[in-house]
């Protein structure tokens, strides 16, 4: 064990840990301010904000010899005998001057800056800056520049930490961003004709400690202190990035990645981040619809109310199983279902009849896996939970019948009825594929968006998107992660788990956590998740995973600027006139 002294307190660090002084001080509960350092990027020590006094303690005599000059904490390894002083007048004066120097060129247009509220420059100015600005510079409007499809650069707000430049060089690998000019004229830019357009560009907006890089998607949409973060899991590919939904007034404003060393590190791709229209799409299915058999030619759909509509669905399914036998009824478990929902639906199917055919829903595949320089991968398999659903299917009927096999069964006329759960955020089935289901005498489609299949259904049951439900997903490597709901379901739709729970005849509200406990007791694959899923997930295949250390400060293991300066009590308030004419909530 190495002993490091931070501001007079000794802390022990493991020999193989290779920490720098910022991380070591963080364990001692001392915050060293920094801009340019990021645990996922290389060290440049360019911002000079983290300068501290260091020295070495002689083990035998106990004598401490200090270095005459300040050194950057991000670049100094914390080794045995290192002595760090972070609160001396010399260190304070340096932090003071760095802050003042950064603000000389800064527009101070916080009122219109999207980063205000989670800006490190703002936070540090309160903690380490001067009380008033000595420079005679009036606030001005920053110059603005387009960097790519999702990124806008406010040139004058930049503090030249070069995090974004290093990100494109080391993580995404495209090297689109660069620093042009020198000294106080230095700016971030792209080469003409080579915009920042790769599929990880959104991350530079999170990395930027100030308001220089802003997401076009979120620009001017909402102030950060109004939004409430909800930990969730991205469902757009089988990597299953840990994400946070930022929600205000029941509207999803943005999605940011959450640090998870087992899945996505600090990053996420632009598909998961920006392509979330399905969550609040106006065409979302919003009531149980029933098409009577005699009006097949016309628009014969009629709305049914929830309890009766669901009873009718149950009645129709039971009737098919009773009339033509359980093996003529198929229940399709979508890979977009959470493990809990898949378990409840499979249990329900087996209560109708033990012979009911359970199948895996269509697994959408797009191209090939796309791996970036750091190893971050966008998987070709564009669904979150194939592995989890497969495990549940194996438990209930030994083998997995996949989508092509199910289609064959339908075409061969082996089936009379089907319950197809879907929940795909994009179009997933074409007319030709859906046409095969026309021969069924009962088709129930449980989906969130209208599709060719839903138009052929006898019953349409509205489900909810990932942002509206609790539950766990098992990613490509067997990592089970817990996602929490951030939005209430669209009007008329019920949470999928509640629907299955009602179909099963269970009383009361659906609680995903208790269903997971039940599932862990029944399906051995999930046994480790019986007591809940921690933030970084549990790997059910290998049985081991990394759990990030939570320190007293919690800033260094997860250095994304997320609501750090705002109290939670403040987040609970919402600024909205409750009147009917409110333009946001309608």
């Amino acid at each position, binding site marked *: 064990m190495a002993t490091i002294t931070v501001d007079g307190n000794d802390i022990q660090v493991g020999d193989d840990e290779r920490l720098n002084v910022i991380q070591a001080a963080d364990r001692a509960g001392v915050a060293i301010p920094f801009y340019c350092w990021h645990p996922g990027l290389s060290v440049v020590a360019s911002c000079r904000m983290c300068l501290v006094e260091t020295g070495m303690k002689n083990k035998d005599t106990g004598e401490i010899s200090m270095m005459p000059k300040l050194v950057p904490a991000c670049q100094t390894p914390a080794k045995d005998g290192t002595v760090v002083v972070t609160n001396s007048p010399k260190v304070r004066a340096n932090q003071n001057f760095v802050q003042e120097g950064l603000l000389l060129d800064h*527009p101070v*247009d916080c*009122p*219109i800056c999207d980063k205000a509220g989670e800006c490190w420059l703002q936070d540090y100015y309160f903690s380490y800056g001067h009380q008033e600005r000595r420079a005679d*510079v*009036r*606030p*001005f*409007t*920053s*110059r*603005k520049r387009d960097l790519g499809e999702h990124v806008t650069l406010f040139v*004058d707000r930049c503090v030249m930490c070069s995090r974004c430049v290093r990100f494109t060089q080391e993580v995404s690998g495209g090297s689109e961003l660069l620093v042009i*000019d020198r000294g106080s*004229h230095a700016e971030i830019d792209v080469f003409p004709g080579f915009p920042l357009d790769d599929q990880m560009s959104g991350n530079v907006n999170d990395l930027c400690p100030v308001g220089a890089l802003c997401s076009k998607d979120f*620009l*001017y*949409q909402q*102030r950060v*202190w*109004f939004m409430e973060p909800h930990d969730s899991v991205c469902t757009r590919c089988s990597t299953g990035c840990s994400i946070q939904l930022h929600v205000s007034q029941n509207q999803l404003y943005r999605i940011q990645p959450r640090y998870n060393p087992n899945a996505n590190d600090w990053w996420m791709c632009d598909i998961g981040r920006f392509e979330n229209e399905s969550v609040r799409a106006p065409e979302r299915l919003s009531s149980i619809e029933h098409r009577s058999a005699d009006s097949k030619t016309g628009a014969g759909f009629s709305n049914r109310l929830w309890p009766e509509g669901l009873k009718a669905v149950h009645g129709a399914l039971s009737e098919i199983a009773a009339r033509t036998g359980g093996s003529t009824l198929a229940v399709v478990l979508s890979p977009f279902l959470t493990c809990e929902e898949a378990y409840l639906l499979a249990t329900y199917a087996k209560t109708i009849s033990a012979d009911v055919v359970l199948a895996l829903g269509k697994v959408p595949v797009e191209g090939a896996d796309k791996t970036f320089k750091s190893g971050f991968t966008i998987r070709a398999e564009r669904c979150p939970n194939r592995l989890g659903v497969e495990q549940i299917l194996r438990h209930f009927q030994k083998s997995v019948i996949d989508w092509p096999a199910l289609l064959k069964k339908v075409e061969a006329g082996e089936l009379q009825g089907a319950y197809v759960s879907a929940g795909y955020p994009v179009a997933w089935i074409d007319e030709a594929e859906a046409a095969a289901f026309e021969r069924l005498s009962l088709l129930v489609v449980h989906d969130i968006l209208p599709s060719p299949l839903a138009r052929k259904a006898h019953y349409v049951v509205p489900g909810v998107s990932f942002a509206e439900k609790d539950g766990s997903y098992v990613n490509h490597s067997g990592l089970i992660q817990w996602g929490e709901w951030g939005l209430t379901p669209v009007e008329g739709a019920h949470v999928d788990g509640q629907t299955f729970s009602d179909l099963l005849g269970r009383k009361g509200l659906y609680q995903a956590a208790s269903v997971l406990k039940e599932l862990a007791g029944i399906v051995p694959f999930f046994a480790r998740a019986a007591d809940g899923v921690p933030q970084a997930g549990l790997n059910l295949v290998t049985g081991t995973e990394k759990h990030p250390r939570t320190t007293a400060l919690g800033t260094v293991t997860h250095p994304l600027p997320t609501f750090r300066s705002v109290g939670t009590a403040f987040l609970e*308030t*919402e*600024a*909205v*006139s*409750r*009147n*009917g*004419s*409110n*333009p*946001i909530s309608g």
Partner: protein
Amino acid sequence: MQPDSKQIKWVDEPKLGLAGRLYLTPLIDGLSLTARHFFRTARGEGFTRQFPEERPLFGNPLIYRGVHRLNKDEQGRVKCVACFLCATACPAHCIDIIGTESPWADREKYPQSFVIDELRCIFCGMCEEACPVDAIELTSLFDLTGASREEMVFDKEKLLSVYDQTCDLEPMRSRGPAAHSGPPPGKDH
């Protein structure tokens, strides 16, 4: 402040004399005042103010907290930069703003919609305290009426029209240019 502080001057209630304890003299005092007012009003010298024909006078209309207005800059554009600070400060959550990119070259952001629910508002004045560009101000208009709830939800156009109505009587408190306009000083590249 402690109860035994030197700064507090404690005053005892004066003891009532015999006349006071009889309650007859205060009664006569009070009735005579009523009678005086009665006869003065009967002679037409009353204190009743003929509202709304006769408007009450304010000591200083600039500090009265009545209906809101949205100020305009020299070019007649809304001064607000849609920073949401008034909505943040508002304890009644009556302000609702939708910000968007401004159509003007010298301004970055402006309110696409700015709605105040005047029925929700408690007229505390926190919004004008919070405003960094002096765009929202409370006027001395106090007799706010409407036939429906919808009518009392003021949108941007209505709030700007309140400015047009009141700008002569109550000048803007800050006459300086909007804080976020003009070219960046000291930037030559």
